[in-house]
């Protein structure tokens, strides 16, 4: 909030537009100058959240005082989730005009603590107008300002899908026709994936009695920490399963049939995209990936392999992809 030698009355109108969970909105801050030079704002009180009146007291340089009461519709702050302050938006709205944007190597406010913010608002003349900010809002600003020199590359995301149960379900969804079950393929999935809690993670319970081979073990590792970029042990088991299942002709035919293809179907972009939907529901492969897969089929064709084998190799590439880990 700047001190100005002009007479201002602030009409703050922030629409209460609850759009829905998880959606944010930006307030429109309207500042309207009502009169000319010769006055300064001595105090302004803005409600913290959702109140309806604003009181502005102004004092002119000639010593006259006027008080204006303004009714606002609603007041709120930008939130990521409704009702809770967003530090980034608060900083942008109230601080960045003086203290630079954040992060900024030239900013001296990086890592400003709550205590220092409180001190500034209490003691720095240009900041006293921010006294309306609650402690929660000030803490949100402090949290936003926190930064260090750690490289972004050190930050690692570990997704949590891909336990033995999920992987088994995915492989059955891809390779098994529920109306005509291939028990050979199903046994491969059971032995290599479902019965491997130690390698793929996922719970096994003495109460559900589904721990392979060890009744005394109750291993709950639902958050398996499977890295979507590839986990060596896990990928080892699933890769072997891909190869073993796809070495069965019936498995190749079953997968093709799920999208209305046959072994004689052309290995073209449209059919490859169709096939990909069995492995990666909802995903549209980019042209580079599609062309690479067509290239795999062409390479197999060049080695005098038939259509079934060409599709086999395309599927093996898909099956071994880390794209299976994202859902």
């Amino acid at each position, binding site marked *: 909030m700047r001190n100005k030698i002009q007479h201002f009355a602030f009409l703050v109108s922030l629409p209460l537009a609850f759009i829905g969970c998880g959606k944010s909105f930006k307030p429109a801050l309207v500042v309207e100058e009502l009169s000319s030079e010769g006055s300064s704002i001595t105090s302004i009180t803005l409600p913290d959240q959702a109140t309806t009146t604003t009181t502005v007291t102004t004092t002119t340089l000639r010593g006259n005082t006027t008080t204006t009461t303004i009714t606002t519709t609603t007041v709120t702050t930008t939130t990521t989730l409704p*009702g809770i302050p967003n530090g980034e938006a608060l900083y942008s709205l109230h601080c960045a005009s003086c203290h630079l944007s954040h992060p900024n190597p030239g900013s001296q406010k990086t890592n400003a603590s709550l205590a220092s913010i409180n001190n500034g608002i209490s003691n720095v003349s240009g900041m006293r107008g921010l006294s309306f900010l609650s402690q929660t809002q000030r803490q949100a600003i402090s949290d936003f300002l926190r930064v*260090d020199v750690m490289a972004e590359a050190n930050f690692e*995301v570990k997704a949590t899908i891909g336990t033995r149960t999920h992987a088994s379900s995915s492989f059955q969804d891809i390779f098994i026709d529920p109306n005509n079950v291939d028990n050979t393929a199903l046994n491969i999935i059971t032995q290599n994936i479902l019965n491997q809690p130690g390698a793929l993670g996922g719970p096994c319970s003495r109460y559900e009695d589904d721990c392979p081979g060890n009744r005394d073990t109750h291993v709950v590792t639902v958050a398996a920490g499977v890295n979507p970029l590839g986990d060596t042990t896990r990928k080892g088991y699933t890769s072997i399963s891909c190869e073993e299942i796809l070495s069965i002709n019936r498995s190749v035919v079953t997968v093709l049939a799920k999208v209305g293809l046959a072994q004689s179907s052309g290995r073209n972009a449209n059919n490859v995209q169709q096939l990909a939907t069995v492995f990666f529901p*909802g995903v549209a492969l980019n042209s580079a990936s599609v062309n690479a897969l067509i290239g795999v089929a062409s390479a197999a064709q060049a080695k005098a392999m038939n259509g079934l*084998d060409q599709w086999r190799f395309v599927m093996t590439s898909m099956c071994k*992809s880390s794209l299976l880990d994202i*859902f």
Partner: protein
Amino acid sequence: MMKYSKTILVALIIILPNIGSATPLNNLSLYYRCYAHLTQERPDYNAPLTQAVENGTTNPIDACLQVLNRARFTSNDNRIGNANDRVAKQVLRTMHNLHFSFFENKDIPVINNIRHHRGTQDLYDITTPALYLTRALFRTNHNYSTVVTDNKTLVPIRTNMSPNRGPASNLPESDYIFTNFNFAAKGDLLGVRPMTAAENNLTHNFNGGGVVQRGRTVGGGLLGTTVYNLMSLNENDNFRANSLNMPRKWARAVFNDMLCRELPVVRNSDAEPFVNGNAGIEFRKTSSCTSCHASMDRMAAANRNVRYTTIGNSGTGNRPESATFIGWPAPTLGPESSWPANIDNNYWKRPTNGVLYYRNHNGNLIDINVTSVQDLGNKLATQPDLYICAAKKYYKYFLGVDVNIGDLNDPGNKIQMNPTEALHRQNVVTLGLRLQNHQTLRTMIQEIMNLPEYRNSNYTR
């Protein structure tokens, strides 16, 4: 089946590039993701709900909430409505196992000997602490705070409430000193309910016979249950608190399980008032030691009267099988005047006065007197950090991001974050504060799934 040379196979396989950084998933992919998180399975592509998502008539997150709702306790307010609903059971199982993974201790340690240990494992469902969270998630209008305020012992409702063999030992009932009893239930989880009086009172024929209560609790939700104490106490079977020996592991488990914190949870300066150079107890002489004990011991003081009760023969050659239980004898002496700096062999006989003492996520020092485990739970229920801890654990499961929610401004342990970490911490704090307000785990799951990070292929913004 045709065999293919590995050489040809390797030569022809390509590695598809990952979908790319922060690529938004489309509706169908997003539904597959959230369905997988709720069930650890893929949805049936031909199911009406999947088709509704693909053709755009149903929002993927709304569809997943419908899946989550299938496991709601709509029958007698304590179990799923349809015991044959496979998806409902899978949701219930996945979320219950997730809740169990939140706890530091995953089984009952050997306290006495193998016969007591095996019996104890057969009588108790070790996922009992998680039942309090599962009940809060799937029971209508059931506040999250009940996890630390409920005064009932809960038991799972499973498809087989009277198994004829112990789930851990596979021994028959006839091998036990107990009569007219049930082992811990087995089979698919269907719901959660309070333990009945009949289940609680266990009759036995040891030394002329008697009754022991296996479902005792001193309240505080899961904190005061027999199972939680059996799993976290980890002491000798003749344990008595005397201010030097304290149920510290239990207190440490409470800090870890309910507040997501590892000791020390205060700053060195916070421990200074308790340093006593003349103390008979060594760890009271330095702030580096006292900084842990000031929090840990004074919380443990609320559970100071906990003790083991063993029924049955010890030794490896005796039959039949027996078990270890938990008891809390009532105080018989007056309170101490302050946290003792010397051994007090009567400490466990005094009133269970303790202190909740820690620096919260904002760096504020929390210093609250408690009078019992139940009171500890009631006070924890007023703390934002209880809810932020819950948010942190769910956040880690759904987004794979583990956030530090500790005191960032401890001069002795400065925690620094890059902007991405700071953003995730802010998300978790926000989610936790909202959970404290609405007290509904289901709502928090919905909010997490609606985060922009959840929609992106690599969970980043």
